[in-house]
């Protein structure tokens, strides 16, 4: 099987560098610390009340998954924002482009390298999340749904990072813009949804649903939808739901995770298309101005 040369080179370099073990160590240490503290508080509670609340173990799962999700949002742009701009800074991009490698090969090689790191991170953290299996309540299907959410989030954040890296020549600027774009996607859409909903409430006197569709691009809402489907009786989800507003009714609500994953994958494809175009030195302008 022919392996993408850029992916192979990136994997070799990242396996050799200190960065990958450091990322895995720090992420898993944080997760383990949170899990241990959560278990400690549960044990203390049991000692005080002599009553075991099994829902507490599920909250450990949610908390762990939420922390892992947040870490994905923080780590992926850092991994990808320097991918193309770094090649430009090292002046190796033109060398790759004069070989048989196409711009798409280069961009996909970079993305695959980032997704491999994310995969390694998620797999290595599974033993901590698997603590909840000891007490039950989470099925294999739930884990698959969580993985889909993580996968689409990593794909979207990675594609946005690569897109910024191809648009901006300097890595520092590309990194800053990647984080800003992701913040707009996660926090901006939530804020806009609440803002427009509050107007609609004033006008109609009821709950506003008109702009809920814009949350389909928000990976945080997709993650909440994945978790909510599994643990709808957990109080923390209801608290988080206050940010998103009431769940949209009808078909959209029933298939939220599937639809949002499809929308985010389409958005990722758009970002990758822009990146491929920007990397291609022989591109023709779409329009002349």
């Amino acid at each position, binding site marked *: 099987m022919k392996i993408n*040369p850029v992916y*192979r080179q990136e994997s070799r*370099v990242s396996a050799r560098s200190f960065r990958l073990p450091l990322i895995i160590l720090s992420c898993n240490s944080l997760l383990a610390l949170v899990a241990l503290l959560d278990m400690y508080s549960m044990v203390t509670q049991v000692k005080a009340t002599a009553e075991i609340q099994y829902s507490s173990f599920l909250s450990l799962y949610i908390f762990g998954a939420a922390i892992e999700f947040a870490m994905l949002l923080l780590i992926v742009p850092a991994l990808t924002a320097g991918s193309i701009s770094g090649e430009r800074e090292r*002046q190796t991009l*033109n060398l*790759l*482009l*004069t*070989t*048989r490698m196409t711009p798409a090969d280069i961009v996909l090689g970079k993305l695959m390298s980032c997704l491999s790191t994310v995969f390694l991170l998620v797999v290595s953290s599974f033993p901590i999340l698997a603590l909840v299996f000891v007490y039950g309540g989470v099925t294999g299907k739930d884990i698959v749904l969580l993985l889909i959410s993580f996968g689409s989030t990593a794909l979207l954040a990675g594609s946005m990072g690569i897109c910024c890296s191809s648009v901006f020549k300097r890595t520092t600027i590309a990194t800053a813009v990647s984080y800003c774009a992701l913040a707009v996607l996660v926090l901006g859409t939530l804020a806009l949804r609440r803002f427009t909903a509050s107007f609609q409430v004033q006008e109609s006197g009821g709950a506003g649903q008109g702009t809920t569709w814009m949350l389909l691009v928000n990976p945080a809402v997709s993650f909440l939808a994945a978790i909510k489907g599994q643990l709808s009786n957990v109080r923390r989800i209801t608290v988080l739901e206050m940010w998103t507003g009431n769940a949209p009714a009808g078909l959209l609500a029933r298939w939220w995770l599937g639809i949002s994953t499809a929308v985010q994958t389409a958005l990722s494809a758009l970002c990758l298309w822009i990146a491929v175009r920007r990397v291609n030195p022989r591109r023709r302008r779409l329009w002349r101005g």
Partner: protein
Amino acid sequence: MVTINGLKKMYGRAAALDGLDMHVREGALYGFVGPNGAGKTTTIKILTGLLLPDEGKVEIQGEDALADPAGMVDKIGYVPDFFGVYDNLKVSEYMELFASCYGLTGLTARKRSMELLGQVGLDEKTDYYVDGLSRGMKQRLCLARALIHDPLILIMDEPTSGLDPRTRYEFKEILKDLREQEKTVVISSHLLSELSEICTDIGIVEQGRMVLEGTMNHILNQINVQSPLRISVYQGRDQALNILRSHPYVETVTIRHNDIMLNFTGDREDEAALLQQLMDAGVRLCGFMRERGNLESVFIQITSHEEEGRVLIHEN
């Protein structure tokens, strides 16, 4: 081998190439020279598929290179004016990376890498990190990298800039080896003395146009005609200057110490007639000869933009 016709490229309103024509023979070591901003790098980028021209045709081995850029990558090896190396890779890994970019893998790639590293004198550095190599070694590694897929044409953009004389000499020897292997090499450089030593053909580009192109012998013959005429006057300098100023073939007159330097456009017969005219006027001469020309002098002559007409310049 390579034919370029009417190549035009604009950057905004500035024309980088303004109808450039270029012809590189098969097996030639073609020196591509011109002042900064003349359009050398733009031409090289178009040849290597890194840039699209606005107008013009590029043919490599009779095939339209602009219509089929993917088909050209196997034919061209490119050495840019920067190193372009991954510091965190070993020399052998760097070579294997680019081998795999051309579809060479496994033993074939390793064998080819070792062969080329031996050719550029880096066979003992295969396990070194690229970061630890000297500037000259990095440049030689770049050359080996550009040859990994055994291209027909090697295009080099200022490959010896910033290298010390010893490394430049070594690089020149490698180029001579390539010439013996009958590879077609296009090399852009400012080091004209070096180019004139190794190149078989020369093209001088100025303001996006080819102003002089041909074999080295052809160019050097032209240089001899265009070199300044040095006249050493023993007695009667003012009289000589009066004759020279009014002479139809004299473009510029420069007085350098006791000698008069002329830009004289006439041929050898006109030179003889001028000498006779000066002697008939009673000017006593102790020297009358063409300066020995070189590539540098023709480059300066072509790329300098002196005002036309007869001028008298005193250089003391």
